């Protein structure tokens, strides 16, 4: 496992809590904000990184992983949260534990108005399905919040989500 230093970027530091929580399967739909974390997961021999065609696949993947005794986390962009809503009923009905790490779009200095519809309702949509939601605005809070969300999920058989704010990630630059 790579040893993230204290001064490392938050993008590196949110990997350590996944390892500490013994996450063995990571489902993801790629997002620019998650690109570093996806790289770290793919490079780790102890983690099976599973690229998904749609985010809801990751809810079902996590259920199967848990049935087999492994812990799973799910990475997505905020637009993907809407795709998960019905499949979250699987986690809720069976109390499957899961932590979702969600990179936010459609909030801070968004260029693309099509992202705003889902981005502005991401937290509300998750909470409608009784997912516990934690937001990260400051870089210093990122790793600690991910660790806390994982603890609650796997200690209590609950679904938790960490929303990594667009201000933290930096608004996407469209004109380079």
């Amino acid at each position, binding site marked *: 496992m790579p040893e993230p230093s204290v001064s490392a970027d938050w993008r590196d530091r949110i990997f350590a809590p996944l390892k500490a929580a013994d996450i*063995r*399967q990571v489902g993801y739909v790629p997002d620019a904000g998650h690109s570093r974390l996806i790289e770290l997961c793919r490079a780790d021999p102890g983690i*099976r990184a*599973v*690229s*998904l*065609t*749609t985010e*809801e*696949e*990751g*809810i*079902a*993947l*996590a*259920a*199967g*992983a*848990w*049935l*087999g*005794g*492994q812990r*799973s986390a799910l990475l997505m962009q905020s637009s993907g949260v809407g795709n998960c809503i*019905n*499949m979250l*009923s*699987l986690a809720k*009905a*069976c*109390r*499957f534990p899961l932590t979702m790490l969600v990179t936010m779009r459609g909030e801070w200095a968004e260029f693309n108005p099509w992202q705003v519809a889902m981005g502005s309702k991401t937290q509300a949509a998750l909470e409608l399905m009784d997912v516990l939601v934690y937001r990260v605005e400051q870089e210093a809070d990122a790793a600690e919040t991910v660790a806390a969300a994982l603890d609650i999920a796997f200690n209590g058989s609950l679904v938790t989500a960490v929303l990594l704010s667009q201000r933290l990630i930096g608004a996407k630059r469209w004109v380079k």
Partner: protein
Amino acid sequence: MSAGSNQPRLDRRAAIKVLLAERGDLLVVTGLGSTTYDAASVADDERNFYLWGAMGGAAMVGLGLAIARPDRPVLVVTGDGDTLMGLGALATVGVQSPPNLAIVVFDNGRYAETGMQPSHTDSAVDLVGVARSCGIDAVFDIVDEAGLAEFARRVQAKERTLFARVAIHADEPPRVLPPRDGVLLKNRFRRAIGVE
């Protein structure tokens, strides 16, 4: 090739009996609706995880389970409706290709649970072709019990990801209802395989 009405077809309850006859270490995930009743009609086994909802999710539950337990054969038995709703899952399975995962689709070309409305496989869609195109290279179109028995032996071998479409009659045998408490199903499954 679509599921034409002149094609030979199996009785679904006979088909599930062949698949589960000598299950050994087999772990089973069923899709919501008829395939859950089918599996329960053989025996309610703690190593069956029945989906009572989560339509489109059966193959992915099987994938997560197969990755977590490479030592055990994992069989997903689901219907054409569940498969069509989560068609992308076949692409994800094709990429991962765990050798201990088998997906069987009982294809009657109908949504049996909701009044036998035709599904896409009744006319245009060939799930065997879809699975092959998704990179699952061991694919089977099964229309008789001998083919099914041979497939069941391949499942136990855990040599490659398997996909089979099984043509079944569009009928509704009497429902056999297993427990539907999700927490119970989860916990007893995990206990049965020693991870709880």
